[in-house]
Structures are given as C-alpha cells and as structure tokens.
C-alpha cells in the first residue's frame, strides 16, 4: 500500500492541539529542563503529542532527542518541568506505577536490542510470558500474528545474530507491539538501513500506528523517510524546540535552521566549523 494513501486519510491540522495541554494529548511535555551534571541537554522545552498521531522529533546528533524519549519512558527525571503520559506525571510515579505505565509503551531501540540468547519467536513472546497468564497455544498464535504483521513469520526460529539490520529492527518492532501498547517510541529507526529496509520500516511504522490505534513518536534525523509518514514535526536544536509544523510546512519553511536541515546544507545556523580561534593566528601568520 503506498504511503500517499495514509496521507489521504490524515485530516488537516488547523484544529489539532499541538502545544496545548489537553486530554486529547497522550503526551504533554511542559517546560522541561534536563541537565547531565552541569551540561544542559534540554532547556525549558514544551511540546504535545495528540493521540493517534505519528510525530517526528528531529535534530542533529546530540541535540537531546533521545533524552526526550528517556524522559517520556521514565528512565530519566527532568531537572525542571514535567512529562505527562496518559495523564500521569512520569517522574512522580513510584516504581510499581512506572512499570504499569511502561506496559502501555513500546520502544524500538536504535539497533533493536533483541535478546541475543533468545530466538525471534521467544523475543516476541518475552513480554507475554512475563506479564500475562496466557496459555502457550495462545502465545504461539499471538506471536505469529505479530511476526506476520512485520513480515517475519518465516524467521521465527532464527537467532538475532542471523538477522540483517532491517530484519532485526522489524523483529524488535514485533516485540515492542507484543502487548498492544498505547504509545510507540522509535529511536533512530532508520539508522544504518538500506533504502528498501528503510522504506519497509517507514511503512510499518505508519501502518501499525493506524491499524492498532497507537500514538507514535519518531526520533530521527532522516528527513526524507520521516516526512513521508509523520503528521507533525518538532525540530530541536541546542535543547530547544527550534521549529515545528506539518511535513508540508517543513518542506517549504524559510526558517534558516529548518532550511539547512531539510536541504542538508553544510553551513548555516549549525556551523561547519567547531568554534576555534582565528585560522591565520593558529597558523602563525598573524602576530
């Protein structure tokens, strides 16, 4: 099914509630600041993710995208502000409640993070065995359904080291949706994939989101692939939301940062040169 057919189904967004706190938002990030020791990674950032949408968070390497995912997943606590997921303030939850909330989340790690001592089938079955009392037959059928959805039913007996990068990512995706989460988070899902695998993963992200009624957050710096499948984009630079908009708005944006990013220009608001003293002085040509 071509991607455009998904775009056709997406309504226009004048009435969407990005950046406003609402019960229709699955995630509300309000004035969040996060620092590792003295290094501020996120600075007073606010954004919202409405239910049922696919949102991309983009930005250069080290801009704080993955940190944002970790704050949503409760792996990190914000220095200031709050992250609310499904109406619950994540950093205020105790361990038990946090784990309950995480059962409603799925996270696709950059390289899949499949359990290397389990085959594909057991990887996907892992959460079902840990969190449910389903019979072995039921788990078998559910796992096959999940694997079929990502096209890997035939690879169920393979070990993770026998999978290609794209297959590993798909197997990890099947594992992440094993318990039908409310929220799917993708950490750099396109990194290191060939164009075919990239297209497959992109389509799967959109298809699963719509078919399962998920809400998805994509952390990526792959402009081409993500603009095809997402509903809304947040650009982050130096820990702040630098720009935001629908894919069409992003494509025609004149904003210097967005323009540089979308058109892969080597110099601009993100400079080519790391800050350095005067070149001539460094070469000893100036007194």
């Amino acid at each position, binding site marked *: 099914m071509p991607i455009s057919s998904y775009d056709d189904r997406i309504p226009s967004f004048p009435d969407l509630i990005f950046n406003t706190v609402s019960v229709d938002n699955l995630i509300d990030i309000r004035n969040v600041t996060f620092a590792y020791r003295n290094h501020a990674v996120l600075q007073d950032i606010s954004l919202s993710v409405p239910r049922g949408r696919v949102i991309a968070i983009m930005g250069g390497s080290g801009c704080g995208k993955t940190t944002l995912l970790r704050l949503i*997943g409760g*792996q990190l606590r914000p220095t200031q502000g709050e992250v609310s997921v499904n109406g619950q303030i994540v950093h205020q939850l105790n361990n038990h409640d946090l*784990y*309950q909330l995480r059962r409603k*989340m799925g996270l696709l790690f950059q390289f899949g993070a499949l359990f*290397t001592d389990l085959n594909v089938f057991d990887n996907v079955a892992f*959460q079902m065995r*840990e969190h449910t009392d389903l019979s072995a037959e039921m788990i078998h059928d559910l796992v096959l359904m999940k694997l079929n959805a990502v096209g890997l039913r035939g690879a169920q007996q393979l070990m993770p080291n026998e999978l290609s990068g794209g297959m590993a990512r798909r197997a*990890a995706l099947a594992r992440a949706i094993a318990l039908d989460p409310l929220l799917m988070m993708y950490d750099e899902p396109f990194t290191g994939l060939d164009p075919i695998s990239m297209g497959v993963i992109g389509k799967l992200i959109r298809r699963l989101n719509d078919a399962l009624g998920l809400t998805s957050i994509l952390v990526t710096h792959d402009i081409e692939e993500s603009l095809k499948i997402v509903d809304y984009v947040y650009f982050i630079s130096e820990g702040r939301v630098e720009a935001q908009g629908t894919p069409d708005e992003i494509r025609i944006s004149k904003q210097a940062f967005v323009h540089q990013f979308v058109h892969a220009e080597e110099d601009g608001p993100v400079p080519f040169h790391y800050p350095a003293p005067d070149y001539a002085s460094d070469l000893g040509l100036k007194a």
Partner: protein
Amino acid sequence: MKANNFFSRIGRFTLDSITRLGTATRFLSQVLMRSGTSWRRFQLVIREIYSSGVLSLIIIVASGLFVGMVLGLQGYQTLQTYGSAQSLGVLVALSLVRELGPVVAALLFASRAGSAITAEVGLMKTTEQLQAMEMMAVDPIARIVAPRFWGGVISMPLLAAIFSMTGIYGGYLIGVRLLGVDDGTFWSQMQSAVSFREDILNGVIKSAVFGFAVTVIALFEGYDAVPTAEGISRATTRTVVTSSLTILALDFILTAFMFRGA
C-alpha cells in the same frame, strides 16, 4: 607540589574505592530483595546452574584430577621420609576437602564462569538489552541478575565437592595404583581421620561463601561496566583479579575461624 599530588591521588583512590564498595553493597541488597522471581520460577536458576556449573565441569574435573595426582606424588615422597606413606589417603583428603577443593575450584570458577557472567551482563548492557527489558516493565535485576546469582551460589559448593572427589581419586591412582600404597589402608585411614562436621562441612561452607563472593563480584562488574568493548574487557579482567584476591583473603579469614583449635 608532587607530595600534594600524591596525597590527592591516594585520597581520590580511597574515596572511589569506598563509593564503589557502597554501590556494590547496594547492588547486592537489591539482588537479595528482588530474588522472589528466582524462587517462583526456579527454571531460571536451573538454566544458570547449567551455564555456570555444568559447563564448568570439564575444567573442574580435569584440574581436580591433576591436583590430586600431584598431591599423591608429593605427599608420598614426603611421608615416605618419615615412614608414614600409609597415611597418604589422609593427607590427600584433608588437603583437598579443607583447602584445595574449595579454593582452587573457586579460582577456576572465577576465571571460567565469573568472567563469562561479567561479559554476558556487560554485553547486554552495551547492546541496550537491559534497558529494553526495563522499558518492557521487566526488572533486569530480578530477571537477569538474581537467577545468575543463585545459580552461582548453588553451583560453587557442588563444583568444589566434585573437585575434591576427583582429586582424591587422582591421589588414589598415583598412591595406590602407581606407588603401591595399600588400598585398604588408603581408604580406611581417610575414613577415620576425615570428620564430616570439622572438615567436609567447613569445606562446603567455604565454597558457598566463595561462590557468593565470586558471583556478586562478577555480576556487579558486568552491570556496572562502561558500555563499550574496552569497558567490558576491563570489567572482565577486574572480575578475575578481584575475585581471586577475595577468595584468598576470605580463605584466610574462614580458616582462622574454622580450624583454630584443630
């Protein structure tokens, strides 16, 4: 200036060591508190007994046999000087059951199973498997660490017993079969001189303590490893070195308490 640097380095080393010891103690308490899953789903522990214990059997049996044979040769030479070669069985058995069995088996366990545990857990951390587990609302301490801990603690005394057994057999092969010590005397003297409570039980206690120490060190080093190839390599080395030193130090302390009047 140099003296200042020297003292500040000592200070930093001391503070780092204390911090690390504190972190390891907290880690151990978490492992103990979250061991419920291991007992409810004992097959997880059995799997670890297989990978830590059963897979270490070859090295334990082979080493035990050689150590026993060396004891047989050396013991025979020394005892014959005093005309007590018939006590060879006692010497071999006591040396193995009290000291060499628990200590050498623990050293082998540290280098075979301990290093494997560290590398495995460290690699799971590096490849984000532990984080993935946390995000799936599964506690990695309860699911990954605790079963390995109990697997190690249970395996170690069994491995030490097998080591002592094969060692005694090695001593028998050399003493009785090769050097001509009387078969009946070898076994009967051993039977009358080796006390179950004083010797065998204390040996078992020692090996359980060593198993506890080695497994905690191996797991902590893996869990705390810097998630890079170099980090895992350092952690694995630290496991073997720290475990070996800890085994020898604990052996001295335990021996001082157990056999002071004997």
